[in-house]
């Protein structure tokens, strides 16, 4: 097995093990709808985590995504309230998200600032802008949005998906294609592997880095749209701390935080593992929700230690 595939294999094996554990322990766990619900309930996390995967692959980090999601739901709700056309609203928020990401990317690239601190400030800014629009939750009653929210796409065996879940799957497939079959994707891996080497190879480092953050901002906005379908409201406190879940999903999915190594498909399984932890706790019924955080923390720890082990082994071979 190729070495970078090993973490991905561990992630998939962990997911399967958790599913089997749930199936043995709880009645009705091993049904198709339970597993589709993992995707339905975490669709926005999945979308934003794919964007985050590219950022982390390039060796950066984006802490602003949770706040951008909240801002997207707020702007969507406010514009719909003002009587805008639903499709125009979606196009507008996606453009805003992309522009937000691009500006962050520009600051990071042009002025050599730390991605962590730039996106932290971006997080403050986006949450603050939410509050400027309204401190209250704004409900959405637009016909198009409610129709999309209620739409169910049957997949056979009495099971169905939501539009949000389908978008999430499309984003994962699109992300895999961009990462592994385009020039942009290769350049992202190259930057994460070693920036100066990438530059010496004549790769467009500056433009690619800005585009990585643009992509992440755009994915955050798309996740915001998906969340708007899911919640049918705009609220400044939507998606608090979601950036941490997204980073956790990427890491658990086997992407190295140092950059350069990882798979978009792994991120999908990272998201599914976060989802299945919540589902297991919900099925158990006696465990409280804060166990989710503790288990996610422990998993993060294990995967980070595993990564260090791989790095150490690679170095000793070299």
């Amino acid at each position: 097995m190729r070495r970078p595939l090993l973490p991905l294999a561990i992630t998939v094996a962990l997911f399967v093990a958790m599913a089997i554990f749930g199936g043995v322990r709880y009645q009705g766990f091993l049904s198709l709808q339970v597993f589709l619900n993992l995707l339905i309930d975490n669709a926005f996390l999945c979308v934003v985590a794919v964007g985050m995967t590219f950022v982390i692959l390039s060796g950066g980090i984006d802490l602003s995504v949770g706040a951008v999601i909240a801002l997207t739901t707020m702007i969507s709700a406010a514009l719909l309230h003002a009587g805008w056309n639903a499709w125009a609203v979606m196009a507008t928020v996606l453009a805003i998200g992309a522009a937000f990401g691009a500006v962050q990317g520009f600051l990071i690239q042009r002025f050599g600032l730390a991605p962590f601190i730039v996106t932290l400030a971006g997080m403050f800014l986006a949450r603050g802008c939410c509050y400027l629009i309204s401190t209250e939750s704004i409900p959405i009653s637009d016909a198009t949005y409610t129709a999309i929210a209620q739409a169910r796409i049957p997949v056979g065996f009495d099971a169905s998906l939501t539009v949000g879940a389908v978008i999430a799957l499309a984003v994962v497939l699109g992300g895999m294609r961009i990462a592994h079959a385009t020039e942009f994707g290769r350049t992202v891996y190259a930057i994460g592997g070693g920036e100066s080497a990438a530059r010496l190879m004549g790769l467009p480092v500056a433009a690619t880095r800005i585009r990585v953050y643009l992509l992440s901002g755009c994915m955050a906005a798309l996740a915001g749209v998906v969340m708007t379908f899911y919640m049918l409201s705009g609220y400044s406190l939507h998606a608090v701390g979601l950036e941490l879940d997204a980073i956790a999903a990427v890491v658990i999915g086997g992407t190295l935080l140092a950059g350069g190594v990882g798979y978009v498909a792994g991120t999908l399984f990272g998201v599914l593992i976060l989802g299945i932890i919540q589902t297991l706790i919900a099925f158990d019924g006696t465990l409280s929700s804060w166990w989710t955080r503790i288990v996610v923390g422990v998993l993060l720890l294990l995967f980070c230690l595993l990564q260090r082990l791989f790095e150490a082994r690679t170095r000793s071979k070299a």
Partner: protein
Amino acid sequence: MRRLAQHALFWPSATLALLLLVNAAFNPSFLAISWRDGHLYGNLIDILNRAAPLMIVSLGMTLVIAIRGLDISVGAVVAIAAAVAALLVGGGFSADGTAASEYPLWFALGAALLAATVCGLWNGVLVVKAGMQPIVATLILMVAGRGVAQLLTGGQIITVYYPPYYVLGSGFLLGVPVALWIAVLLWAVLQWLATRTALGLFIRAIGGNPDAARVAGVRAADIALCVYTFCGLAAGLAGLIISSNVKSADANSAGQLLELDAILAVTLGGTALTGGRFSLAGTVLGALIIQTLTATIYSLGVPPEVNLVVKAALVFAVMLLQSAEFRALLKRTLRPGAGAA
């Protein structure tokens, strides 16, 4: 004048002075300090008291950032320390109806500080021994820590009725808030350690170039471990003050976003985020700027939510001014032709 402007503390001091002047212009009684109920009273005292926990956390953060590290778990550690203390003091009453503490107060406070120190040590071990990136290592505790705090409190907000517990957060000693005494004492000790012992030099050496420092015989790993442990302890101390001030422990919201405020305070104070250059006094000023900003926004009648946008603008401004590329660009724009001459 030029030399004054080049002093490391010039910009933070000027910012703070400007903020205070703006307040004084809108509200002439803003700067007034009076003596009331046996202690100092006034807006300034209030700001100092409220800024104390942030100062304490930021002092710990300053040292961590100075050795090229970062600790984003301080908010979670605040929640853990508050939960431990409130749990051990308990919300109980004794037989005669007066509020009583379940365990002696010193024991509860000591246990809370110990828990916080263990958290800091844990971060240090992950960074130093396991070799993880600081942001990742502390992310783990940031995610799990709040879960642990909620586990301790059973997801409830624990209210404390035992009056001696309130002293830390809202008590006064010689007319000055107890929290401020603690913050100033901590700063004085650290300042002494950093200027009168070799520790300051070692920390600068590690932050400047970790490998060179190690080769030069600085015990970089041990010092880093101590710095992370101390940062945990400082967060725990702040957690006690915060929970004592609100007379309860809320695992969900105690210390929320505190890590960001602390990093902002450190940056505002002139400590370089790239490590090596740090200023403890600057950090204290930075924490005061943040608290004064909050007070200003309240007193100007602007919705408090604007605070976040203003803070974001501040972070952008400060980090751009710290960037060499930006300063070069600024110089070229302001003085075209200077490069040719």
